[in-house]
């Protein structure tokens, strides 16, 4: 089960993920990101502070946007991950492909 909240801060769309992302809830994550892109945001921050678990399907969602974002000049930064979640990202090598900040402040600097 996942709760997704979106707030706008300094022209960036902050997507907060609360709970777990598995195969079924990964669709909601995909929808949230697609909506943000559809609304024309060029800066997307993903708050993973309350993200307890992410499955390969959830990682696939992030992965699938990498190229599209590069082409359209959209910047996305993930931040606030727990060690466990970060480990999942790093094993797959997604830390190489995605921008991951420590906290919101750092994330905002990265995106600026």
């Amino acid at each position: 089960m996942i709760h997704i909240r979106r707030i706008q801060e300094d022209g960036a769309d902050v997507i907060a993920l609360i709970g777990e992302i598995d195969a079924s809830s990964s669709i909601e994550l995909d929808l949230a990101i697609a909506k943000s892109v559809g609304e024309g945001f060029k800066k997307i921050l993903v708050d993973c502070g309350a993200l307890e678990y992410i499955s390969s399907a959830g990682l696939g969602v992030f992965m699938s946007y990498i190229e599209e974002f590069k082409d359209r000049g959209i910047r996305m930064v993930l931040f606030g991950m727990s060690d466990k979640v970060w480990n999942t990202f790093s094993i797959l090598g997604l830390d190489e492909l995605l921008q991951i900040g420590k906290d919101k402040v750092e994330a905002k600097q990265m995106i600026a």
Partner: protein
Amino acid sequence: MRTKAITRLLFLVGVITWLALVFAEISIVFSISSNLKQELPTWLPGILLNLYILSVFYYFKLRIERDEVLNFVDLLWRVFATGLVSTVISLSLRLLEVLMGSTRLPKNLVFNDFIYLINLGLMIGFLLMAFTVWKRLILYQKSKWLLRLWTFFEVGLLLSLLYNSFNIPVVEWLYGTMFGIFVLTGLVLSGNMKWVAYLNFRQKWTSLLLLLLTIFYLLYLIYTNRTLVAMLSQAMPSMSVLTDYQEHIFILSVIVFVTVYSIFSFLVILFNLPTTSVFEQKLEEVVNFQRISQSIQTEQSEDSVYNILLETSVSTVFADAAWLEVNLRQQNYRLFTYKITEKEAHDIINHLKTHNIKGILEQSSDKTKNLSRHLSSLKGSRFRSILAFPIYVKGENIGTLALLRELPEGFNKEMTKIVSTFANQAGISIENFRLMEEALQNERYKEELKIAKTVQKSLLPDVLEKDDDFEIAAFSESADEVGGDYYDTLRINDHLVSLIIADVSGKGTTAAFHMSQMKGIFHSLAQEDIEPDEFMARSNQALVYCLERGSFISATYFLINTQTKKIRYARAGHCPVLYYSTSKKSTEYFKDKGVALGMVRNKSYKKFIQANEFSYCPGDIMVLYTDGITEAKDGKNEEFGYDRLAQVVGEVQDLPVREIQEQLIQRLYEFSGTENINDDYTTMIVKFK
């Protein structure tokens, strides 16, 4: 057989007692009129009469009451026939009298008494026949109370026979009270006319005729007996008539009861005639509903069930045509018609649609009337009334049931209700078929998954490479029917062996397909001695075209060189290798960089992958696994984790490779408390010698 014998015996007894009665009474009358000495007691005829009544009563009881085959009309026919026979005999006696008019015989007292006794016997027979039949009719739908009242009536009447037989001096008030009670009870019982409702129109007409004639015979026989008694008592003023039925409580009560019930029945049937068709229609509705529910149960084809539904709804509300429109989830639109062409139906539907007429989906009858009004504006249509109801399945409107009549204002409120029930029935049928289809589909899917599982299992190798330098053991299990974990080995030449372990993202059939692609890539690329990073780059390039958006494969590829005792490998996003080193006597995870296959879909992928190398010594152990092992959870939602895995391997490192693998899996099951881990989990362990 016994009942038959008893019935015959009773008939015989009846005849004998009647003959005895005639003999006794005539001999008394003769002796009185001839002033001879009287030898027989005067009470004898009374007792014989009662015995006659009793035997006839039980004779009919046995014959009529037990006969299950008789229907209502048959019963009435029996009464009528008995009455007819009695009346004909009585009339022929009269004719005889008239023919002998000039002779002395008709004036003879004894002869008149004889005629009277014959008439009395006939009347009693007829009355008792009617009494028994009426009993059956009254008790057709019995209640406890009704049964008790009837028993009281019958037993009371029979007891009154005793009272009569012993010639107890007539006490005026007792006689009056008893007679009053019997008449009253008879009247109350006569209120039970439920059987009339079960007669159809034709049967009612027959019954009316039979009852009318029965009443006529009854009145004729009563009248004849009355005049005979009057004549006799006039002729014998000195003594009262010995067997005067007019002082006999039993006979009088039965006369009143039988007459009253006959007249009641006649009137009730007469007044029921106009409403018979309604009752018959209701009965037909019930039968129709039964037909529909049966047709659904017997798994007939969809078309035939809808046809029956249309046919029955049309016949129930006297409609001329009907259609059933089904539009399941805005797809597969279907139209079933009955006595109307599809073109006509579409014309009406389109007509209503183009005139933007709302209300076809509303259940109120007013709206339906409005529909009919709009129908009149459609030229070329023969229909003048329409009744349409929405069909709901789980609250979702999935179609319409429409009935049409050529008459204007052809549907009443009652019909509206019936059609709404049919619409509900249609909803149930449609839902049933959908569920049945779904169940079949599921069955098919399950079958397909089974096949996929067999295929997937066959993708994993049965035999792993062996060497003087190492031994390999592997284990794989999947949560779903089909898993996405893959491992394999391939010998390149006498000193080079390649190993792979991979995990396809996602589960199920798609994962299994990707796994087979991975196997194909492995078997073609690993034929040659290529560098592990080059292997990954080429694999990635090959997979980009088959992996859909969001899918990826994590893998680690090893190249074991037994000549140099070195292993070169590349990790593409797969779980880090766990390595036990005998020299260090410790375990460690090889943490190095590497992005999973399919994540970077261009040539730049090579930048994200690196080749690594290490040497092995005898006794070293290399543990390859998928995340199903490290992410297995216990009851407290805690993961098995990397530390626990390393610890287990450290504890069992001196065992042979097969046992290490068994220990590991066993510890995993102990930890999670179940053998049904909710993920695919695989391990491949290499122990060097």
